[in-house]
């Protein structure tokens, strides 16, 4: 294969169709599982009668709550666990994603038929389906506020006050691979469960505690994952799959339909009211906000997403008086889970549009008002929790903005009676740099075989974000070997060392540094063995695939490998990375974005002429991957900004699949999607790299709203910004 070394290993498998995802595996004697979902989102289960279903030919077992004997039946991502695995008789269903039973049968068809034969008696209970209902009838189950100074004092200093109401709908991850997996019990009685997981350690704990199984008896592992974006952190197929295999003691496959995937977990939805006080010079002095989110019935990621939102409303700005309160209410709608950049996109949207309103009112340019208010570097320290300024490079927000404006060129001229607008946005966000509490430390086990090839075992899965490219690139460079000589075992509770979850844009930094640490340890061993082999006390250095002593080439690599093989020398190491600081586990990174838009005020339709984004990324380790992440992230952001809205009515989706929930196609992308990197290496990252996976969404969404504001004079703050919403804002309908 020409240039095989330049093609990432998983890419070759993926373009040939050889790559296997969780739903692609078949084991001999494999059975098929299907889950019985409830008819109502809020109900008490009076009776579950599985007798008819069990009699159906080809049905192996119908599993209900009664089969969970030793465990707590409670799961979740973070403790305390509050989500039932299966809801049983005299227990309560709280949303349509609460499972009632698992049918295991010879074929998927028989399993589906058996589901229809399960008789369930419900006592329908009142449900809470809107945030307004929730505020009226319940109490929040999570409240978070960010207060500084004295808000009344702040507003008294303001010459103008801008106010806006915002609405962000639930957003669906829409990864191309719906959740799926298979499980089997091996010869040691270990339940092996294969499914796409972004959060192996947490899932392992939840499965074992809820089902009452010993951790060593449950092995979880992920093959290639067809997209995660935070959605594969959620509880989905894994617990039911483990339970099914554990009960029937035969291989079982569970594949969700797209509709089941849609009914699983979502990005949090928000309604908020924000007020900004600004002096006539343009200085922001007061920021007040009330942020409400209708969560699912269980906590899921709600507290984290709300907290992130509350923090990010301040943006990268110095505002002395702040009072932002976030409240999350349980409803019978849908589970809330992680989603790329959760909270940051929403917070950035709020502040970046409000500051634009202020600029317009004060007749200041978008750029100038931002520059006036940007937080100075010496004030970054306490701006976001647990974030260290030590890890940062010399890049500032302004640098990224300058680069964006430069690349964008002059604002395009209007044509054909349409209007043109330009909008910008900036954001100061973080990436995980040594792991949050609970995830602290990443290991990279590495073994060099006697032909010099290397196998790496690392906890992060390959979900398309390109971590395998980063790892092979680093090692290929370090040892001067072809990347085809490097293989990776990903994401396996029983064979890969601990790592953080795949999220918080942490993989590149944490895995990268762990791998580099392992490489250094391996190098040290090679040098030690070389000394032994040569029977010398002189220092030996391994460089570019050869061994040197004071620039004199000493030894053929193959000879040392033979020596190690014959004498049984240990060439396995564990690289480890934990981050340089005990409590600060995140580093800053900046991003700026610009959108030029052309609007037809008669139809409300608009075209994005260009989207330009610049990211302070430290060092790009794998250009195709980094560029791809940014471009893809911009389109994902634009999807949420323009096209996507997950709608529920009375606890059921009105947008149950990809037919009704429309994500961008290739024809919906902007004419130009330009992504730029500012490479000023940060400290401590592998070669100075910073995390970037999440951040491409944050600026493009407010930049679009600001561009439309510039073009039409109306600011639309209810996403997605559809032509209908544009027309309503313009009072045309």
């Amino acid at each position, binding site marked *: 294969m020409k240039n095989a070394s330049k093609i990432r290993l998983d890419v070759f498998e993926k373009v040939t169709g050889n790559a296997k995802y969780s739903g692609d595996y078949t084991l001999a004697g494999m059975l098929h599982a299907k889950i019985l979902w409830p008819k109502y989102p809020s109900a008490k289960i009076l009776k579950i009668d599985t007798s008819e279903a069990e009699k159906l030919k080809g049905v192996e077992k119908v599993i209900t709550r009664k089969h969970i004997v030793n465990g707590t039946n409670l799961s979740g991502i973070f403790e305390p666990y509050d989500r039932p695995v299966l809801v049983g008789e005299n227990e309560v269903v709280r949303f349509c994603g609460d499972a009632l039973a698992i049918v295991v049968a010879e074929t998927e068809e028989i399993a589906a038929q058996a589901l229809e034969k399960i008789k369930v008696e419900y006592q329908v209970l009142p449900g809470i389906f809107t945030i307004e209902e929730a505020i009226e009838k319940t109490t929040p189950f999570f409240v978070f506020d960010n207060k500084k100074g004295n808000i009344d004092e702040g507003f008294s200093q303001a010459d103008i006050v801008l106010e806006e109401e915002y609405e962000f709908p639930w957003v669906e991850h829409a990864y191309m691979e719906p959740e799926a997996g298979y499980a089997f019990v091996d010869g040691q009685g270990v339940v092996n469960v294969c499914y796409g997981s972004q959060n192996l350690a947490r899932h392992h704990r939840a499965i074992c505690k809820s089902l009452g199984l010993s951790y060593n008896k449950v092995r979880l592992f992920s093959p290639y994952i067809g997209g995660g974006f935070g959605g594969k952190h959620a509880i989905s197929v894994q617990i039911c799959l483990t339970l099914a295999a554990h009960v029937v003691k035969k291989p079982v496959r569970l594949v969700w339909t797209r509709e089941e995937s849609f009914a699983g977990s979502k990005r949090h939805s928000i309604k908020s009211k924000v007020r900004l006080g600004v002096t006539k010079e343009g200085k922001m002095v007061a920021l007040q906000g009330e942020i409400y989110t209708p969560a699912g019935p269980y906590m899921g990621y709600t507290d984290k997403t709300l907290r992130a939102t509350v923090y990010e409303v301040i943006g990268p700005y110095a505002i002395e008086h702040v009072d932002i309160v976030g409240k999350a209410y349980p409803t019978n709608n849908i589970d809330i889970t992680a989603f790329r950049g959760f909270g940051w996109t929403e917070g950035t949207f709020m502040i970046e549009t409000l500051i634009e309103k202020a600029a317009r009112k004060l007749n200041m340019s978008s750029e100038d008002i931002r520059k006036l208010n940007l937080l100075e570097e010496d004030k970054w320290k306490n701006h976001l929790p647990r974030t260290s300024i030590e890890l940062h490079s010399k890049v500032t927000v302004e640098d990224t903005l300058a680069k964006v404006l430069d690349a964008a060129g002059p604002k395009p001229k209007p044509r054909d009676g349409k209007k043109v607008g330009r909008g910008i946005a900036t954001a100061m966000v973080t990436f995980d740099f040594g792991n949050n509490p609970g995830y602290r430390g990443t290991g990279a086990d590495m073994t060099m075989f006697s032909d010099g090839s290397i196998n790496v075992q690392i906890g992060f899965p390959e979900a398309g974000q390109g971590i395998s490219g980063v790892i092979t690139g680093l090692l290929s460079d370090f040892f001067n070997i072809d990347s085809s000589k490097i293989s990776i075992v990903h994401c396996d509770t029983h064979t890969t060392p601990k790592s953080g979850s795949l999220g918080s844009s942490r993989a590149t930094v944490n895995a990268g540094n762990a791998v580099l640490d392992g490489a250094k340890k391996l190098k040290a061993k090679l040098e030690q063995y070389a000394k032994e082999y040569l029977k010398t006390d002189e220092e030996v250095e391994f460089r570019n695939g050869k061994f040197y002593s004071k620039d004199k080439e000493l030894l053929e690599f193959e000879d040392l490998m033979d020596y190690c093989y014959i004498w049984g020398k240990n060439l396995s190491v564990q690289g480890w990375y934990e981050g340089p600081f005990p409590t600060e586990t995140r580093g800053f990174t900046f991003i700026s974005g610009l959108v030029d838009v052309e609007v037809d005020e008669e*139809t409300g339709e608009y075209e994005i002429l260009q989207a330009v984004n610049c990211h302070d990324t430290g060092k790009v380790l794998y250009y195709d991957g980094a560029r791809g992440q940014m471009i893809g992230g911009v389109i994902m952001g634009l999807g949420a900004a323009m096209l996507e809205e997950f709608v529920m009515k009375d606890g059921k989706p009105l947008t149950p699949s990809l037919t009704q929930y429309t994500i961008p196609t290739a024809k919906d992308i902007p004419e130009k999607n330009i992504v730029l990197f500012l490479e000023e290496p940060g400290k401590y990252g592998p070669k100075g790299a910073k995390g970037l996976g999440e951040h491409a969404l944050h600026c493009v969404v407010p930049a679009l709203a600001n561009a439309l504001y510039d073009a039409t004079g109306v600011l639309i703050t209810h996403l997605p910004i559809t032509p209908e919403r544009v027309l309503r804002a313009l009072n*045309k309908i």
Partner: protein
Amino acid sequence: MLTKFKYIRPKTIDEALEILNTPENTAIISGGTDLLVQNRARLVEPNTVVDVKEIPELKQIRETDTDILLGSAVTFSMIIESDIVRKHANVLTQAAQCVGSPQIRNQGTIGGNAQTASPAGDGLVALCGMDAEVELVSLSGVRRMPVKQYVVGPGKTVKQHNELIKGFIIRKQEWDFSRFFKVGRRKALAISIVNGVINLSFDDEKNISSARITLGAVAPTPVQIADLEKELIGKRYSDELGTLIREKVLAAVAPISDIRGSKEYRSYIAAVRCDGIIKEAASMRGC
């Protein structure tokens, strides 16, 4: 997952009609892009699926001196590639280009689109917009009627269980200006929020001499805006006429609200697009 059914692929129309004439609970599959989705949703559960896609007569595109004849199993891709259709029934070419995606266009057929009878069906609206006729055959004989009469409600046609759509007859169109338009949530794989056909001809004085305007997704079936057509005759485009166009469209449509758009939006955008397109047609004529 689909329900259990038998599959038969007749080789001739007569064979197909024999099968359809039994008391079997049959469903005709042409492209399958609607039928399979409906079956998966349990809206249609046949015992036997009759695949008519390989009957040669049903896949033909032919012309006579006056008409174009499209077999019911002609796919949207075939329509797009057909010079005959492009030349003589151009709105159907335009409509076909708007349907779904390349894959859907390769598989989906004009007959299937008409029989699905969605008021938003791009192919169906194009047919109605050209006053096309449908030919239904059964063992008892042949029925021919305007497509507008054949579709009677959302998802409802007058086709009997034992009938097969043989094809469509479209008078060769001779308009000065023919436009199919579609408003969708995105630029591919989109169900029409509003769509329509605007056919216009002009006289030597650049007045509109004849018009045929049909809108889809704004009523239970595609609707001809006859009032507007009458108003346009003998007139030149002006801002006043534009206002009248919008009024007439608003008065003629009765859309519903759904997740794709509210009824106010549908009414509004239908009116605005009609006005805009008529204005464009006029300016192309130098009016």
